[in-house]
């Protein structure tokens, strides 16, 4: 496999090109060539034992830490990844790539179709979590890393980490799986469907061809983001943050303005999302999450894996107020691993911040991740 590497100065990102590779997707479709945009932090040691892959969530990107040139803000996990942070880049070489189907430089609906000057749009093939992980594994291989020390992710990132454990256990030593599940639940699919319907019923969407007129289905995409954002919080967190407080006014307007702070906040979330995310990508990636289902197969896949996986360590973390990926879902993974006597650790962190807790200030999450990585790294370093 010959991979071409370039640096995109505008995206401040490395790009890996996989040409004529004929990547076979789970759907049966084949992408003959694709690219992945990725960032790295820290230094790979001489033995190449300190590499960690961080997998981003639905609307994340490769900008884990440092500056994100698309938003002009700090990377999405800069509180977790960096020098002396829990995932310490003084010690570890951290890689994060934009997923296949994403919109921050990797091949996805927004990018030009191979050998043409038209974007994929709705012609992009359906991608799954398994496909994303397959693409990532090719990137890791191209970077000449035989074994990742760890694969870490929250939410859709957790799905990818779990998929790594299933598909490439021989290429990793442990996974940290935060706020995830064996499957995307009916309720979660339902929320995604409402989001997708909001996008697809925006007249500007035009079957995914909005880019032809340089337009964006802003209304649909922002509504999708608003709905999703509610599911990332919890009732308590919302109450604590907003209560029934009014926005820039002393009395209610008896109209449909954003009277309440919570309304104004959601509108802002929707609006700022539109500026950084592609509507088609949102359709494809939510679908990829919906299709994720290891409910029946996980135990068998682990027990009868083609590749040796006995050495794998699992850290599974959930949050008490996460109703999108509740603790019970994490415990199912833990139960199945325990029934196979695998080396699994599990912690439910007590917080009211909901699903988004993994991105926020949670000292216990920091401690557990830092300790798990440091102590397990010390064991292989002996």
């Amino acid at each position, binding site marked *: 496999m010959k991979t071409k590497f370039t640096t995109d100065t505008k995206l401040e990102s490395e790009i890996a090109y996989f040409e004529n590779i004929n990547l076979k997707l789970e759907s049966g479709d084949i992408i003959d060539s694709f690219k992945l945009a990725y960032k790295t932090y820290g230094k790979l040691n001489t033995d190449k034992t300190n590499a960690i892959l961080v997998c981003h969530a639905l609307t994340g990107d490769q900008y884990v830490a440092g500056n994100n040139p698309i938003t002009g803000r700090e990377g999405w996990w800069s509180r977790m990844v960096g020098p002396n942070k829990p995932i310490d880049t003084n010690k570890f070489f951290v890689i994060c790539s934009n997923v296949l189907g994403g919109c921050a430089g990797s091949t996805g609906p927004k990018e030009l179709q191979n050998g043409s000057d038209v974007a994929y749009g709705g012609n992009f093939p359906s991608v799954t979590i398994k496909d994303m992980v397959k693409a990532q594994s090719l990137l890791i291989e191209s970077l000449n890393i035989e074994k990742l020390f760890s694969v870490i992710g929250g939410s859709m990132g957790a799905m990818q980490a779990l998929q790594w454990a299933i598909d490439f256990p021989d290429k990793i030593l442990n996974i940290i799986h935060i706020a995830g599940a064996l499957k995307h639940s009916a309720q979660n699919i339902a929320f995604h469907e409402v989001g997708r319907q909001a996008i697809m019923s925006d007249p500007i969407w035009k079957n995914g061809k909005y880019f032809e007129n340089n337009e964006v289905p802003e209304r649909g995409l922002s509504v999708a983001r608003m709905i999703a954002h509610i599911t990332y919080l919890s009732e308590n967190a919302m109450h604590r943050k907003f209560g029934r407080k009014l926005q820039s006014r002393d009395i209610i307007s008896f109209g449909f303005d954003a009277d309440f702070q919570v309304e104004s906040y959601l509108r802002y979330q929707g609006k700022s999302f539109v500026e950084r995310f592609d509507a088609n990508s949102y359709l494809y990636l939510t679908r990829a999450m919906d299709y994720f289902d290891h409910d029946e197969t996980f135990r068998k896949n682990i027990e009868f894996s083609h590749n040796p996986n006995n050495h794998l360590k699992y*850290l599974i973390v959930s949050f008490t107020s996460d109703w999108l990926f509740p603790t019970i879902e994490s415990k199912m993974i833990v139960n199945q691993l*325990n029934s196979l*006597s695998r080396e699994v*650790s*599990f*912690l439910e962190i007590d917080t009211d911040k909901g699903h988004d807790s993994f991105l926020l200030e949670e000292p*216990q999450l920091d401690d557990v991740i830092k300790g*798990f990585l440091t102590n397990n790294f010390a064991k292989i370093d002996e």
Partner: protein
Amino acid sequence: MNKINSIRKDWSLIETLIAEDRKILDIGCGDGGLMEQLENNRNAITHGIELNRDLAANAIARGFNVVHGNAELDLSQYSNNSFDYVILSQTLQAMMKPKDILSELLRIGSKAIVSFPNFGHWKIRLQLLISGKMPVTESLPYTWYDTPNIHFFTIKDFLNLCNEMNIVIEKSIGLTSKGKQFDISESVTGVNFFTHEAIFLLSYKNFEPIKIKSSKKVFTKNSVIAN
């Protein structure tokens, strides 16, 4: 003995009951102290369960395989005979269903190690006899209304239960309140009176399959069905 010393003593006795290179499940593992000791001194592979969130987080952060969970609900997920030893240190008296837990220990592990404070100790008997109030001692330091210890039992009670459940006591160590150690099985009289804390190594009775002696081979192939 103060609480910490008493736990250390408990751990070092547990260690003496465990062979090298075995797979161990520590129920109520705290921040992994015993697991660490057994990994270092016995080259054990350890797993733990801990109910307390902060202790579980500490243990995980220290690099141990620990599941934050409730032993009374979560033991069922482990497969039969998946550990060499299952350890329940100083916790049986705090369980809702001690008998069920005991049978779970020996389902999951080939052997179980159980330690508990003896409610039959003379100081406890004397306190109840003289004051007429529920005893409060160093090893059972709680008042009756806020104690986590909901099932008090004596060594005699425990031995009876083991007998009823066909559990074999492979080894038993007693400790007096002064920390003096003795073999419970060898000292018959007064054991229940003087044992402050007890540690048991348990396993199930192995039933020999019944063999029918016969000069004729009655149960040869197909003959049973044919007759």
